[in-house]
């Protein structure tokens, strides 16, 4: 029974994506909507990304210094591990899990409310491909803005680590700098960016599916919002394993 339900939902999701990835009726309208979504989904998320990354970067550095580092290890280990954790996992996978909560629920509730208040029906009656008009700009906006968010996250995480060096005397700034520069592999940064592109697609498309297919009223919109966050998060975690294996 669950398998049939899953296959049915997956089929509906694919059909919706098929309708979404169609040429926009008016490219000018698409660009206007794309710009709005970049602002709503991306630019409005910069604050939370910077805040969380700053604190997590600082906490990772403190944890590494106080609990992992020993006399047998070089003094730059804390800086090195902070950089690797931020680059490889936090700024891509964990940041996208956080964004799945913020952006995913936003997308699902917005589309769900549009569905129950007949705004999507109004688009259809006008002869507009509502899926393409509403969903395509969200997916393209989030996929194109996510590398910027990842970059900001890495930078904020490292800034957080420097805060522990300058303001808390946990590690000396020179040891931290040495660790951050030690055996830097540029590919690790690109790996994080590539993974985040997949995660951004998952967040935007899965949340849009749950929001767009809402039937009922406000309770169903709330459920769709929760389902969007849960499903996006689970899919991000699963795909993270495969992407990490493939890209490493």
């Amino acid at each position, binding site marked *: 029974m669950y398998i049939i339900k899953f296959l049915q939902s997956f089929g509906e999701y694919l059909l919706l994506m098929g309708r979404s990835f169609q040429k926009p*009726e*008016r490219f*000018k*309208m698409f660009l206007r909507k794309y710009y*709005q979504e970049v602002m709503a989904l991306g630019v409005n998320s910069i604050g939370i990304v910077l805040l969380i990354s700053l604190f997590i970067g600082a906490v990772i550095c403190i944890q590494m210094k106080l609990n992992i580092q020993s006399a047998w290890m070089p003094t730059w280990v804390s800086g090195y591990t902070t950089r690797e954790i931020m680059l490889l996992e936090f700024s891509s996978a964990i940041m996208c899990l956080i964004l799945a909560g913020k952006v995913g629920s936003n997308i699902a509730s917005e589309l769900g*409310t*549009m569905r129950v*208040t*007949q*705004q999507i*029906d*109004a688009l*259809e*009656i*006008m*002869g*507009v*491909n509502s899926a393409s008009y509403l969903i395509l700009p969200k997916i393209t906006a989030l996929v194109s803005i996510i590398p910027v968010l990842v970059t900001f996250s890495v930078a904020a995480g490292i800034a957080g680590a420097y805060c522990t060096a300058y303001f808390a005397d946990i590690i000396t700034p020179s040891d931290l700098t040495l660790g951050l520069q030690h055996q830097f592999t540029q590919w690790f940064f690109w790996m994080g960016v590539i993974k985040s592109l997949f995660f951004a697609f998952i967040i935007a498309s899965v949340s849009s599916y749950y929001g767009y297919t809402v039937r009922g009223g406000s309770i169903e919109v709330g459920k769709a919002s929760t389902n969007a966050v849960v499903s996006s998060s689970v899919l991000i975690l699963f795909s993270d394993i495969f992407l990490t294996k493939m890209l490493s």
Partner: protein
Amino acid sequence: MITVDKLYKSFDDRQVLSDINTEFHNGKTNLIIGQSGSGKTVLMNCLVGLHEPSQGHILYDGRDLTAMSKRERTLLRREIGMLFQSSALFDSMTVLDNVMFPLDMFSTKSYKERRERALHCLDRVNLGGAESKYPNELSGGMQKRAAIARAIAMEPRYLFCDEPNSGLDPKTSLVIDKLISDITHENNITTVVNTHDMNSVIGIGENILFIDKGHKAWQGSNKEVLTADNKRLNDFIFASDFSKQLRQDIIANMAG
């Protein structure tokens, strides 16, 4: 003119519409009336293509909606304006942007011309001056009028109104009814109104279709409805003792 030919609609095992045959005339306000759950909303959804009929045909001036390709259906929909029960204005846009939306999407006119057309439509529904407001800043009646302005922006050949008076006070309902009727006659369009408002039935019902339990139970004009001898229709329209007495008085006056 819209012709409905032997229309059936069922959801799973539940038959909602059975053997509906009717015509909605050009230049007239055509009303679909019936109790809640009688199937009138399903009929309207079938007419505009939001539901697929189980059997039967819907002809828009001879063009069969049920046999149309996706592309043909999209083109037909650009000739349709619809006023939804909930108004369905886009929350994120101002009133002017809402009215301009179909023009921005499909019209090849310049921005200035599109804006002028939208302002003209807003003036037509007496909403001049409200163009920069958002839908949540408007009253229910103003939202309905803004939705009418959006529906007529593309100069549609067919106008559908789903319970346009729901949630409105009687006076505002009369304003909306008059607006719909006037726009229908001015532009000579085929208007179909789904309602259970009796003031609308008497006031603007030039062609009334009464649906009862998914079947066509009666059809006629607002003049004929007063004297119709269909018991179910009379029980529905003249439900209260007061209205029953009123009907008898009117018939007695007509006879006298």
